[in-house]
C-alpha cells in the first residue's frame, strides 16, 4: 500500500473484512492463502483509491475482488459466446462442481500456470438443465367419450348456462327423494 492510503487503518480494516468475507464465501479456507489474496486485492483497491479518493475503500475493495475473480474466470475458461455475466456464473458453477477451493486451493485466483487438469475440468463444465434437446410432438388426441358421457356433459353445460334450470332440477330431486322416503316408509 502507498503512504496516501495507509492513513486510515479503521477504514482499510473494514475493506479487509469485506474482502475476507467474500473470499470465505468462495470457500477459501486456508488462512495463509486468505491473507495473501486479501492483501493482493487490497493493493489493487489502494491503487484505485488514489484515482478515486472520494469513494469508500470497502466499496472499492469489494469491486476489485469481484473484478479480479471475473478476470480470473475469463482467463481460465477462455472465450465463449455467452455474456460476461453468464460466463461469470458458468465459471463459478464449474469451480463449485470441481470443488476447486478444496481440491486445488492454491489455484484459486492464481493467474499463473493453473494446473492443466483444473483448466480442462472448468472448460468442460457447462451447467445446463438437461442434455441437448431433441423435441418430440406429444399432442393430446381427443377421446370419443361415448353417448352417455356426452349426454352427461351436455346436461352439465346446460345447467351451468341456466342456473335456474339447475335449481329446478335440484328441487325436483329433493321432492322425489322425500316422496320416495314417504312412500317407502308406509307400512
Amino acid at each position, binding site marked *: 500500500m502507498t503512504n496516501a492510503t495507509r492513513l486510515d487503518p479503521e477504514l482499510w480494516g473494514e475493506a479487509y473484512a*469485506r474482502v475476507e*468475507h*467474500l473470499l*470465505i*464465501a*468462495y*470457500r477459501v*479456507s486456508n*488462512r495463509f492463502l486468505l491473507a495473501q489474496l486479501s492483501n493482493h486485492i487490497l493493493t489493487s483497491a489502494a491503487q484505485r483509491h488514489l484515482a478515486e479518493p472520494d469513494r*469508500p475503500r*470497502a*466499496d472499492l475493495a*469489494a469491486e476489485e475482488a*469481484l473484478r479480479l*475473480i471475473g478476470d480470473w474466470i475469463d482467463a481460465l475458461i477462455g472465450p465463449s459466446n455467452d455474456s460476461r*455475466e*453468464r460466463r*461469470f*456464473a*458458468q*465459471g*463459478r*458453477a464449474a469451480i*463449485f*462442481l*470441481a*470443488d476447486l477451493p478444496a481440491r486445488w486451493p492454491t489455484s484459486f485466483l492464481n493467474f499463473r500456470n493453473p494446473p492443466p487438469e483444473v483448466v480442462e475440468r472448468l472448460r468442460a*463444465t457447462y*451447467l*445446463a*438443465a*438437461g*442434455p441437448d*434437446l*431433441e*423435441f*418430440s*410432438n*406429444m*399432442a*393430446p*388426441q*381427443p*377421446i*370419443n*367419450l*361415448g*353417448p*352417455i*358421457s*356426452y349426454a*352427461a*356433459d351436455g346436461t*352439465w353445460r346446460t345447467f*351451468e348456462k341456466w342456473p335456474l334450470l339447475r335449481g329446478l332440477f335440484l328441487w325436483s330431486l329433493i321432492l322425489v327423494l322425500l316422496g320416495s322416503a314417504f*312412500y*317407502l*316408509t*308406509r*307400512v
Partner: protein
Amino acid sequence: MSDENEAPFGPSSAHVARITRRRVSVVTFVVFTASSATLLMADLLWGMPLQGWNGIVLALYAVLISLVSFGASQAFFGFLVRRGRGDSCLLTRLEPAEETEDAPLGPTAIVLPIYNEDVARVYAGLRAIYHSVAATGRLEHFDFFILSDTTDPNIWIEEEVGWVELNRELNSRGRIHYRKRRHNTNAKAGNIADFCRRWGARYRYMLVLDADSIMSGETIVRLVRMLERHAGVALIQTAPVLARGETLFARILQFGMRLYSPVFLSGLNYWQQGQGNYWGHNAIVRLAPFIAHCALPELPGTAPFGGKILSHDFVEAALLQRAGWAVWMVPDIDGSYEEGPPTLIDSAQRDRRWCQGNLQHFWLLFARGLRGASRVHMALGIFSYAASLLWLTSLVLGTLLVIGFVRTGLTWVPTPGLATTFGIAAHVEIVVLVALTVLLLFGPKLLAVIDLLRQPGGAARFGGTSRVLLGVLGENLFSILLAPILMVFHAKFLVATVLGVGVRWVTQRRSSGDGTGWGVAFRTHADQTILGLIWLAAQIYYAPGLIGWMSPVLAGLVFSVPFSVLTSREAYGRAARRHGLFSIPEEIAPPPELVSVDDTLNQSRPSAVVLPDTSPDRGLFRAIFDPYVNAVHVCLLRERPGHSEEIRQYFDEVRERLLQQGPEALKPKEKLALFSDAESMAWLHAELWRRPPASLALWWREALRSSTDRVRISALA
C-alpha cells in the same frame, strides 16, 4: 404342449382363449359367492313389515358384497396359482437367457418428478439407485432426470445445490440432470409430458419413479431387458413394497401390504394379464408409444369433475391398450420400494386427491375404443371410494330400520321361504350369512398367511411364525378400527367432490416429524367422533341390542382421535420394532439400497452457508449471497433474449425494493419472479457484495452478519 406353456404374450387365439378362461373363472367366483350371499339376505328380508326399505338395503348389500367378493376372488385365484410351480403366465417367465445378459440395453431415462419434497430424502434415494445401477456394470445405458415442479423457493435452492453436490460426489455430471419447470401445467402428468417433449426422442425407455421410490439396479436392468424382449409390451408396472415406515401407522400398513399382497397381486395378474394398470411410478415405459398415445386431453366440464386429468396413470395405461400395446404388472419381481404415508391424516390427504382423480374417470368409463379391462380398472377405482358412501348409507339405513321397529312397536319376524323349504331356522340362516360375509372379508388374509407359512423360510423372513400371527392379529384389529374412519373420510370426499369443492395438489408428507398433535386430530376427526357418539347414543336409547353388532364401527369412530394420534407416534412404531412386531423382510434383512438410504440420511449434515432453517427467506438469501449457489441457480435458468422496457422497469423496481427494504417488502409472486429471472439473480448477487452494508435493509445486514459468523466458523474450522 398346452397353450399356457407356449409364448403366451402374442395375440394368438390361444392367448385370447386363456385370458377368457381366466376371466370367466373370476366372474363365476364373484357371481356364485355374491349372489349366494345376496340370496340369503333377500330371503331374510322377505316379509319385513317396513316395506320399501328392505329393497334399498338389499340393493346396497348386493353391490357391496360383489365388491368384497371380487377382492376375495383375486386372493383365491392368486393363492391357487401360486401353488406348485406357480403361474406360467408371468412376464418374467420369458426373460432372456443367460447368454444374452451382456447384450446392449436400449437407452433409458430414469425420471424422478418432484414437488416440494424433502430434498435430503429424495437425493438419498436417487444416490442409492445410482450406486445400485452402477454396480450392475450397465450404467452407460442410463441417464437420470430430476424433474422439479417445486414452488417453494427454499426447497428449489436446496434441490439445485443438492444436485451439484450429488454430481460432485458421484462424478456423474452429464448423467444426472436437473430440470425445473417454470409453470407447473397439468401437475405430474404435465411434468412427465414436458420431459417427453424435450428429451423423449433421445431414449427408448423411461423408468418413472416417485419422490420416495427406491429401486435396485438389477431390477431396473431386468425391466429394460424385458421390454427389449417383448416388443409388444409398452409398460411394465412393478409392485413396490412399502418400506422405511417408522410410525406405528406406517409399520402396520407396510406389514399388512407385505404379507397379503403376494396372493392379491398374483390374483390380479391372473385375470388382467397384458391388460394391466399403471400406478404412476416404479414402472418402465416404452417411450415411442407413450409419446404417441398418452398426451392427455382435458375432460369435459370444469374441476373438480372435469378439466385436467388428475389420476393420469390409469388413463395412460388405457390409452396404450387402446392403441394395441400390452401393459403388464410383474408381481414376482423384488427390488422395488416406496414409502407409505406416516399418519392417518396424511393417508387421508392423499386419499382425497386420489378420490377426485378416480371420480374423474367416470367420463372415460364409456369412452369408445377402450378395452374392457381398462373400464374395469377405472370402475374399481371409482368404487374404491363410492363403496364407502354405500356402506355408510347401508349402516345408517340398518340403524333407522331398527329404530323404526322400536318406534312403531312392530316386530320383525323373518319368514325366509328358502330356508324354511330346506328346514333351516331363520337364526341359522343369519349365522350362515354372517359367516359367509366374514369369510369373504377375512378369508383372503387367511389365504395369504397360509401361503406364507407354506413357503420354506417364509415366516422366518417376517421374524418367525409367532410374530407373524401376532402381527396379523394386531393388523386386523387396526384394520377394523381404521375401516369406519376411512368410510366417513371417503364418503365426505366423495360428496365434496360431487358438490364441486376442488382438491389442491398438495405435497404428500413422507415423514411424520413428531406425529399428529391432539389439536390437529380433534379438528380433523371432529365429525367422525360426533357421528360416532350420536350413533352410539341413538342405539343406547332405541336399540341397545344392536350395540354389540355395531361396536367395531362405533369404536373406530368414537376413538378416531386417539387412534389417529397414537398410531402417528414414531416411539410406538420403534417399540413394536424392538419387539419384532409388524416386521417385514426388508427390515430384518434390509437390501443394500435401503441400507444406503438410511446411511446417507444419518450422515447428512446441513450445509454451512445458510441462514437458520427457520428463516422463511433462507433460500432467497442463499441464492443471492453464496457465489456458488447463485451461479448454479443462474446457469439453470433459461436466458431470456431481452426484456421489454416495461418488464425491465418492473424488475429494476422489485430488485431495488428487495435490497433496500428486505424480502418482507415483496409479495411471494414478486419473489418468485425474481427467482425465475437469471439476469436479476446475477445482478442481485453482484450488488449485494458491491454495495456498502449501510445502504442495505436491516434484514440483509443481520443476515450477512449471521452468515459471516457461520461461514467463518465453517470455512476456518
